[in-house]
């Protein structure tokens, strides 16, 4: 448990504060992500917590400030960005061998040498343990730094941009490791710059903007307010398709020369629509677009402001339709606007949302996208009516803790194994003729699936034991669960 209260740092008198009155908690068993742009004050906040910089505010680690902890390396593992930023950060002297380096640090921490070898195994560095550090890649350096931070068997991890500048595989490994650390009862506080990473990794997202805390949200709420899915469509007859999509109630904006960015409608539906109307498509791919940071001066804790007036005009009909759907799903909606019927221009009642409750047509069954579907369900209604949104997220919120514990892999790959990046599996009947006969292909499709599948298998083989134990149900067996392997 880390309690952060009123962290403030002003470098010069009169200058804008680097960090101003940042207050939040990082709870055990959760990954808390400190999100912010470059210069938002994430690293400074972290250094303030560790009292590496002078400033105001109090940070209590299990009730004690950092300097009062007798053996801090035994309680808190710290991974700050070392000398050189990002990819050039090194773990130690380049002339030293990995094993020697870790054993040396083990001696400083006061743990037996065996522990260093264990950690090399755990961070998948044992194969290169006898290599000098100058031959290491940034990812290996970062893993070695993590191993060094874990030497003292800490229950809390503080990491400053651990995945910055790393390859996707290393990022994935870091995510899975941090998640399993948290699942085993550890407290994890990570900083990151990319909202998408925050959404993948966090249980709770704390957003900083220019040193001020602008949002402190659970991840579901974060996904709802800060990330919105979009479909990139490319082809020669985009104007026609855009008209049709607008009629369907989608939000369409031009994206490059012959491209559209479509929001509010599913990828498969766009494909079907295009096929039915004989429109040639060159690209059809899902992607996630980040919403701007809420620039509210006073700290907003609920975080659902800043999006109210964004996408009203082009979409009123569609939104109200969704509100209607939600009104039927969740009875406790306190909305004032009367639900207007859907415009008659809609040619066929296509399922605009995969799991829209009131939809008459059976939706496309997609086996592994529950998480995504949950997000989708949470995303849309917010923009129209924030009041309804709160009730909409409630089930997601209550469902979140159980869902987080059980399938760690699923959760991890939730946003990466999007339908576009996945090779069409056998049980997907609804993707019928259109998908097969039309030249619907995304650029990423040929390369990504194999890569993701491989990395997923890799991950599984690596963490089988850990995940097996986690999924078996006895979630936080001991706080040392993840470390005893």
């Amino acid at each position, binding site marked *: 448990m880390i309690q952060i209260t009123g962290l403030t740092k002003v470098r010069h008198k009169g200058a804008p504060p680097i960090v101003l009155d940042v207050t939040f908690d990082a709870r055990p068993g959760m990954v808390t992500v400190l999100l912010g742009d470059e210069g938002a004050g994430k690293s400074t906040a972290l250094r303030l917590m*560790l009292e*590496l*910089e002078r400033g105001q505010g109090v940070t209590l680690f299990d009730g004690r400030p*950092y*300097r009062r902890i007798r053996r*801090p*390396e035994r309680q*808190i593992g*710290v*991974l*700050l960005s*070392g*000398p050189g930023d990002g990819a050039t950060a*090194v*773990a*130690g*002297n*380049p*002339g*030293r*061998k990995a094993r*020697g*380096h870790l*054993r*040396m*640090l083990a*001696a*400083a*921490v*006061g743990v037996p040498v065996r522990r260093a070898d264990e950690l090399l195994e755990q961070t998948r560095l044992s194969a290169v343990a006898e290599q000098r550090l100058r031959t290491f890649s940034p990812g290996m350096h970062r893993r070695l730094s993590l191993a*060094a*931070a874990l030497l003292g068997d800490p229950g809390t991890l503080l990491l400053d941009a651990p995945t910055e500048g790393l390859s996707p595989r290393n990022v994935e490994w870091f995510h899975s490791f941090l998640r399993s650390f948290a699942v085993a009862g550890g407290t994890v506080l990570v900083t990151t710059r990319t909202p998408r990473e925050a959404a993948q990794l966090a249980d709770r997202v704390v957003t900083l903007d220019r040193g001020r805390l602008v949002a402190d949200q659970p991840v579901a709420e974060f996904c709802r307010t800060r990330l919105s899915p979009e479909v990139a469509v490319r082809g020669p007859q985009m104007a026609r398709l855009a008209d049709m999509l607008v009629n369907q109630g989608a939000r369409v904006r031009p994206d490059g020369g012959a491209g559209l960015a479509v929001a509010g409608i599913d990828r498969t539906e766009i494909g079907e629509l295009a096929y039915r109307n004989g429109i040639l498509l060159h690209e059809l791919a899902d992607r996630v677009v980040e919403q701007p940071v809420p620039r509210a001066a006073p700290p907003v804790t609920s975080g659902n402001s800043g999006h109210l007036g964004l996408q009203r005009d082009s979409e009123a009909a569609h939104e109200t339709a969704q509100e209607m759907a939600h009104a039927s799903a969740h009875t406790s909606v306190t909305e004032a606007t009367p639900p207007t019927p859907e415009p008659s221009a809609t040619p066929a009642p296509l399922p605009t949302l995969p799991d829209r409750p009131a939809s008459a047509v059976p939706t496309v069954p997609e086996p592994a996208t529950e998480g995504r579907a949950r997000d989708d369900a949470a995303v849309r209604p917010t923009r129209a009516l924030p009041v309804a949104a709160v009730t909409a997220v409630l089930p997601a919120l209550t469902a979140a803790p159980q869902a987080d514990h059980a399938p760690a892999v699923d959760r991890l790959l939730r946003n990466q194994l999007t339908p576009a990046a996945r090779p069409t599996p056998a049980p997907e009947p609804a993707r019928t003729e259109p998908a097969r006969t039309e030249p619907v292909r995304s650029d990423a499709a040929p390369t990504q699936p194999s890569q993701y599948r491989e990395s997923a298998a890799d991950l599984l083989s690596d963490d089988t034991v850990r995940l097996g134990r986690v999924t078996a149900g006895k979630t936080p067996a001991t706080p040392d669960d993840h470390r005893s392997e």
Partner: protein
Amino acid sequence: MRDLAYELRRLRGLRSTWLLLAAVLLCDVVVAAVLAGQAPAGPLAAPAGVRLLTAAVPLIPLPFAALGAGLLGALSYGHEVRHPGLAASQVTYFRRVRLLLAKLLVVGPVAALLALVTVLLDTVAVHLALPAGVTVPAWTDPEALSDRVSEALGAVGLGGPADLPGVFAPVALVVGHGVPAALLAFVLLTVVAAWTGVLTASLTRSAAAGVLLLCALPPLLESGVALLLRRTGRPWPTRAAELLPFQSGIEWAYGWVYGGAREAAAGSAALTDPALLAAVAVPAVALMLAALLVQVRRRSL
């Protein structure tokens, strides 16, 4: 204790440590052999013998072993600053002070060992390389040698063999007249150089700057001490002159220009002259205090 173990592992795990030590020993042996080959015929004077054994050449401000030990000390701190292994959050003030002491404690014995090995290797090298015409006084009468050795052994409570076999002939170089004291001083000088290296590097946070400062210190210190001694009317002790490749900073730098007035300063004061000791100890203590004070102001090593 943990910091001591850390420092030991740190020093051992670096290739540069071993390379540096090997290079120092190699330089020593080569220089000693070359110097011995150039020794003039006739009995070898004690100061010349000491210079041969310590491989001191007037080109560098310190003997090789002392320079190497100083470099080792400076690197032991400089590496830590350049490639920090310990997380910044772990190096609190007391941790830093403990690390500094651990470095001094580890580097000191290493330097002493280096000096001893240097003397041993040089003894062998000189023994092999000395031209036929040169005679070593202690060498020519083995009785005197064995007397000395048994006397030394008896002093520490051991009964040594009455007469030593000829194998120990090289040792005679070491136990020449007044030579043991000078060699002891050589070992001390090496250790002090190593410590100075650690401290100067900790002051400047850079190994290179630390080594430069270390090289600049002896001439500065020496000229300072020489000035002090002149003012108090004491001559510069002979032993110190034997030990160092130069006699005092000023004379080292300018003496040869004026035709060399080296003997003028050389007197007969003992190495244990309190004024000399104080003059050497004060800068060392000042350096240590400065290093500790600077650490207070710092946030990292």
